[in-house]
């Protein structure tokens, strides 16, 4: 017997989206927005980096969407059930869906996408799929996933960017990466790929045969490619650009831009990712190997200053390893407030000999550079001898991949659930050279491993919560990495663009519901 959970949720979801509507939508109009940097390709799953997600999220779709509270909403799957043991997930697909090339979308596409395509190409999907024992289509419009153990976050892993549906009839049996259709992606989404002028613009046009009645309202979306932050700001100011997705303008411009009339700003729409800025601290060698040193760093950094000056007060200084958007946050931990004296004490206690350490800024634009400068200054003021080590993206990857650093900036997506976004940073079996996204700091703690693994597969959530709270206490004490900020990535847009952000991934699939008020 099955719970009516899914129906309840989907009902809630509808309620939500209809509530969001202000006035009645009008059709027509094209929105000009920005993608930065130029994406390497548009086939989700084959490429997962941010710009690709932003654009292709409107071409491709996943089985589910998520509210800004990360509650699942129906998308390609109109409903779903979860067995009591939490091991079987059954999805009922919509029957009126067709690919952009007219072929019908069926359960086989789902099986192909999940079992073949993503298993081969998509690391983030692989992370989830390792828990999946078997995927099968029981009929044309029903798919059943069987897990080897319960996996808490399974239901929120179906977002388009992570777990997109790709057309079997075009990809099955081909060399995916050299498939001719990669240049002209075919999805089920509200917009169709029209044209990509390298270095200038990617144009999407309305999918007239879209299965949801009346959607989308827009005739098209133009994603402009403007490499220079300043120019992007200007473009928005002089009206060529209507929407600035999060992170497409330098933070310093945001106050000015948002102050312009007929400009609206929302911080919503990145809950699914809730980017978490961290300071890798090399746990293997040098002063940073000492717990007290790492704590000292936490006390030495004026994170509030960074938030106010560099991030315009947006975002949130985290308490510890779990961000405020993450589930199961343990909030009765003692915060690491700015406290240089405490930092000096700790350094004295471990009698730090002034050995020089380096700090590696994140080569993603001015704000990060400034931030590194600020932290460097903070650390110097408590007597830590730190030099900045400049490098471009390549050098940054290289260094982190080879563990050749002392302190390094980064930020990670949390993907809504600790088991997806957080544990990967601390699990010891996640230590491997060559990737800047795993347990780069080299933290090893059996207890932590146990807790995380148990929590991931525990069922139901109450069990998980207990485990996660304990893990947070340990991490909070050990400070394997520095927890800098949960970044507030605001989206700026002309106020006449309505219902732009209706999900936890914001504009990544937001243009589906968006409409222009005239």
């Amino acid at each position, binding site marked *: 017997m099955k719970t009516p959970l899914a129906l309840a949720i989907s009902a809630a979801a509808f309620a939500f989206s209809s509530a969001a509507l202000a006035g009645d939508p009008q059709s027509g109009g094209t929105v000009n927005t920005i993608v930065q940097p130029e994406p390497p390709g548009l086939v989700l799953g084959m490429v997962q980096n941010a710009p690709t997600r932003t654009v292709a999220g409107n071409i491709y779709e996943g089985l589910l969407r998520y509210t800004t509270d990360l509650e699942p909403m129906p998308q390609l799957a109109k409903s779903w059930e979860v067995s009591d043991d939490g091991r079987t997930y059954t999805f009922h697909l919509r029957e009126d869906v067709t690919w952009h090339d007219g072929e019908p979308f069926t359960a086989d596409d789902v099986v192909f996408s999940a079992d073949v395509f993503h298993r081969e190409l998509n690391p983030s999907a692989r992370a989830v799929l390792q828990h999946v024992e078997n995927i099968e289509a029981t009929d044309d419009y029903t798919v059943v996933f069987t897990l080897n153990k319960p996996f808490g976050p399974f239901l929120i892993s179906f977002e388009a960017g992570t777990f997109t549906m790709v057309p079997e009839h075009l990809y099955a049996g081909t060399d995916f990466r050299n498939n001719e259709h990669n240049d002209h992606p075919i999805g089920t989404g509200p917009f169709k790929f029209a044209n990509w002028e390298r270095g200038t613009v990617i144009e999407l046009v309305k999918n007239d045969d879209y299965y949801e009645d009346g959607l989308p309202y827009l005739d098209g979306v133009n994603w402009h490619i403007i490499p220079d*932050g*300043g120019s992007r*700001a200007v473009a928005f100011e002089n009206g060529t650009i209507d929407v600035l997705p999060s992170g497409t303008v*330098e933070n*310093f*411009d945001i*106050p*000015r831009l948002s102050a312009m009339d007929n400009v609206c700003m929302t911080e919503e729409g990145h809950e699914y990712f809730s980017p978490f800025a961290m300071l890798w601290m090399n746990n293997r060698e040098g002063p940073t190997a000492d717990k007290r040193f790492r704590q000292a760093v936490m006390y030495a950094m004026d994170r509030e*200053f960074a938030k106010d*000056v*560099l991030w315009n007060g947006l975002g949130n200084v985290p308490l510890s390893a779990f961000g405020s958007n993450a589930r199961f946050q343990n909030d009765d931990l003692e915060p690491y407030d700015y406290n240089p004296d405490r930092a000096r004490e700790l350094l004295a206690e471990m009698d730090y000999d002034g050995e020089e350490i380096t700090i590696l*800024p994140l*080569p993603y634009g*001015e704000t990060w*550079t*400034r931030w*590194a*400068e*600020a932290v*460097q*200054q903070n650390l*110097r003021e408590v007597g830590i001898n730190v*030099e*900045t*080590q*400049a*490098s*471009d993206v*390549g*050098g940054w990857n290289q260094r982190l991949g080879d563990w050749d650093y002392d302190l390094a900036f980064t930020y990670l997506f949390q993907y809504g659930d600790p088991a997806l976004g957080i544990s990967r940073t601390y699990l010891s079996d996640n230590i491997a050279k060559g990737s800047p996204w795993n347990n780069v700091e080299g933290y090893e703690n059996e207890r932590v491993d146990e807790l995380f693994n148990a929590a991931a597969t525990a069922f139901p959530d109450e069990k998980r919560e207990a485990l996660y709270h304990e893990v947070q206490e340990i991490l909070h004490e050990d400070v394997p990495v520095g927890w800098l900020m949960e970044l507030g990535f605001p989206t700026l847009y002309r106020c006449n663009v309505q219902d732009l952000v209706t999900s936890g991934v914001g504009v990544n699939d937001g243009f589906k519901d968006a409409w222009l008020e005239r």
Partner: protein
Amino acid sequence: MSFFARFAQNRGALIGLIILLLIIVMAILAPLLFPESPWRMVQRPFLPPLSQEGFLLGTDTMGRNVAAGLMHGAWVSLLIGLVSTSVALLIGVPLGAIAGYYGGLVDDFLMRFTEFFQTIPNFALAIVLVAIMQPSITSIVLAIALVSWPPVARLVRAEFMSLRHREYVEAARLVGQTNSTIILRQILPNTLSPIIVLASLMVATAILLESALSFLGLGDPNVMSWGYMIGAARTVIRQAWWLSFFPGVAILLTVLALNLVGEGLDDALNPKLSRER
């Protein structure tokens, strides 16, 4: 007429010299006037110039004192300019001298080598070099030097070619002086003036190059150079014009001064005497 007299005849040169001296003084005084690191966040960000006691030129995006940055920057920019130029000379002069003096195959080979370097667009090459060596004072200086030596080599070569058949050089050969002596004692001294002039201009170009690199984010993050200041201020140029304005002017003045001085040197070192007679 004395060297300086000839130099001073060119009023521009004199002005240039004065500006240059001022900048050098700035560089020297920096540590005295602003003992603490220019990176120190000392005040509220985005203070406009003159708005606050002790912050003549205001503060930057992170509340750092622009005046302090400017003066420490003078030091960095000049340093980079001078060192990279010297390095370039160290590469270019010997190559040019040898090519010009011996001629023939040696010359051919060395000139092909030089052309080769000139065939790769300068700035692009500089960028690549810095990217490869990862930004730092050293890598920047090297990169600048590596892209700016060919003109030196060419100049020196040309000078040597025109001088090596001068009668006094032949006389030196006749009395049995060794090639090295002839190169160092007879010819080189007589090529110095054009080299000096070129060098003064190269320093200017080097400063421009460095600023351009920093502008693209390829500067040394540990030193406050003018180029860095502009690069950093570029994103906020709209709300804080002064952040990129003052360093911009500083660069302009320095380069300007160096050029004026260069012209002055040219007049003073290459008196027309040498041409007519």
